[in-house]
């Protein structure tokens, strides 16, 4: 199997796809307004005609590159290219003000690489064990896992639990459309033939993440971004290396742990790593004034999330973040179902993803250190030209999945809806995650009751089920209890 994996990842074709993915990702991530999720959603249609391994690795390349690329504009423009780089702005821009943007980007590149590698190692070590454990799950455990995933997504993905639940509920409701898998009864199809096979979630994702983001960009389309800094001396000094090696591995591990939690994305990973580095520092007062730790921690943290997010996605079919949700879509298009069986039935693919992700991180390091000047030039591509092109990519991408204009309409509808939801401060991520976890929750709920002949005690019959019940209760009630305790 090892030889198969090596042959698969180190073939010229796949290697080129990884490089292309990382390069595209860095370009997308560096442009403010284009997020990693949007990048992966836009590139996804290109993988429909590909085999599974190159397709998934192209998307992973985009993901890894975009999360890192966000730091470029965070450092140079004081505007995070992606939300994941928001914490990098705090110290990164201070370097630029001192004329040390090259140094800042060098620290960011190496730290992102270390964070990414830590996460790949965790993915490599934890995933097979977790998949073995998940093989013991049956319908009740999978139902409770999906409920736990939904509860945690709702509670951490926005400013309000109620809004998170509403949006998650919207996503789950969309998953009801189509022929019911257990009884064969058509639900919410309104005699529309396009709805019989259910709501295709790729157009929904492209609409919610890419189109709605492009609409938001139109709001500021007439405000130009200026890049005035010149980049020099990217390679970190000995002193910076010492700091990076002290900060980045731990931050990468924190990011990985956060990535494993369903719904917690790279943005949270970066901020938690930043505050941990600040808390454990001997000079916390210097954070925010432009110190290497202030870049190293969030950058290792956000790239640490990339591997972590794939752990629940590959082992249990529960997406760690929005990008992982899109990757589930990509695997489904290839006829593959993420979950423990993927590890037994498609072992080569799984290990190719692990190795390919490592190669993507090395590519990111090499491209980041050698071609930063090129990526900085990308920043001067006017959004006035780029945004209409994104419209076209969204339309063609949604059409390409089933060569059906109905999907384009769905994408446009959710693009408009996503824009207004963002305006109302409702995070759209729970909708997509709900769309994926909803069917998992419903089918396993009904299957469990079928197994127990209608007895609900099956949901608390095993220790694993109890663990999920307790975790869900803690997630949903924890914040309210904490608030109450604070008041007394």
């Amino acid at each position, binding site marked *: 199997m090892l030889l198969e994996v090596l042959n698969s990842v180190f073939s010229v074709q796949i290697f080129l796809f990884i490089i292309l993915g990382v390069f595209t990702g860095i370009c997308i991530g560096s442009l403010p307004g284009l997020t990693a999720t949007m990048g992966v959603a836009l590139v996804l249609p290109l993988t429909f005609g590909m085999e599974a391994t190159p397709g998934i690795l192209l998307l992973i390349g985009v993901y890894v590159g975009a999360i890192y690329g966000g730091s470029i504009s965070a450092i140079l423009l004081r505007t995070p290219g992606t939300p994941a780089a928001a914490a990098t702005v705090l110290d990164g821009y201070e370097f630029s003000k001192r004329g040390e943007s090259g140094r800042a980007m060098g620290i960011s590149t190496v730290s992102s690489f270390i964070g990414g590698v830590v996460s790949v190692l965790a993915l490599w070590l934890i995933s097979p064990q977790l998949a073995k454990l998940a093989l013991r799950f049956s319908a009740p455990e999978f139902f409770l896992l999906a409920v736990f995933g939904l509860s945690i997504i709702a509670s951490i993905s926005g400013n309000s639990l*109620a809004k998170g639940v509403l949006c998650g509920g919207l996503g789950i409701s969309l998953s009801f459309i189509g022929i019911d898998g257990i009884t064969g009864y058509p639900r919410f199809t309104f005699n529309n033939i396009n709805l019989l096979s259910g709501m295709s979630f790729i157009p929904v994702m492209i609409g919610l993440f890419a189109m709605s983001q492009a609409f938001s960009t139109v709001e500021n389309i007439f405000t130009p971004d200026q890049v005035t800094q010149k980049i020099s001396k990217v390679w970190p000094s000995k002193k910076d290396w010492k700091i990076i090696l002290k900060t980045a591995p731990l931050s990468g591990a924190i990011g990985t742990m956060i990535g494993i939690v369903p719904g917690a994305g790279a943005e949270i990973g970066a901020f938690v790593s930043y505050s941990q580095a600040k808390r454990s520092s001997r000079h916390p007062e210097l954070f925010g004034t432009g110190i290497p730790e202030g870049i190293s921690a969030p950058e290792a943290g956000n790239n640490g999330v990339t591997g972590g997010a794939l752990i629940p996605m590959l082992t249990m079919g529960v997406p760690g973040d929005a990008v992982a949700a899109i990757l589930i879509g990509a695997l489904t298009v290839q006829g593959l179902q993420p979950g423990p069986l993927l590890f037994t039935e498609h072992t080569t693919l799984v290990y190719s993803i692990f190795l390919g992700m490592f190669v993507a991180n090395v590519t990111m390091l090499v491209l980041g250190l050698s071609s930063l000047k090129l990526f900085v030039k990308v920043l001067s591509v006017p959004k006035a030209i780029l945004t209409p092109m994104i419209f076209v990519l969204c339309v063609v991408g949604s059409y390409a999945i089933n060569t059906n204009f109905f999907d384009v309409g769905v994408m446009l509808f959710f693009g408009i809806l996503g824009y207004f939801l963002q305006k109302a401060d409702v995070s759209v991520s729970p909708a997509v995650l709900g769309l994926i976890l909803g069917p998992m929750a419903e089918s396993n709920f009904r299957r469990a009751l079928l197994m127990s002949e209608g007895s609900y005690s099956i949901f608390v019959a095993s220790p694993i089920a109890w663990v999920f019940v307790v975790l869900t209760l803690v997630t949903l009630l924890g914040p309210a209890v904490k608030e109450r305790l604070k008041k007394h």
Partner: protein
Amino acid sequence: MRKANFIVSGTFTLFAIFIIAISVGYPPSNHGVPGPGMFPIIIASLIILSALTLFIFTLRMPKEMDSAIDLKSKNVLNVYITMGGLVLYFVLLPLVGFVVTTSIMLILFIKWFSKRAWWKTILISVLFTVAIYLLFGSVLNVPMNFGLLI
């Protein structure tokens, strides 16, 4: 934000009532195993509960915490015009064809957003459209020939 929260909570409540109204007509549970309507009703009830929570929290929200949402400024109007343009593009696309409709859409948007010279705008738009047409049509084998023209 108060107004937006009320609208969000009201819209989602109506949406949930709609789901329940349809789901109650689905076949009932059989020997304790839920029918196709049960899960939609559970989720819709959860939506109503959350919408009510949002409504009550917003009512109790201190006025100083309220913030205005920009829905009428010139920048937002530009978004509405863009949305309208894209809906028109979506309607015309299958009737006219990809290359012609997309090139015209890109020319109009790029000219509007960037005020570049006409020849540059046309060149960028046509080149990008043809590149996408060839990439999806020839390399990825997606049928891109539809409509009266190309």
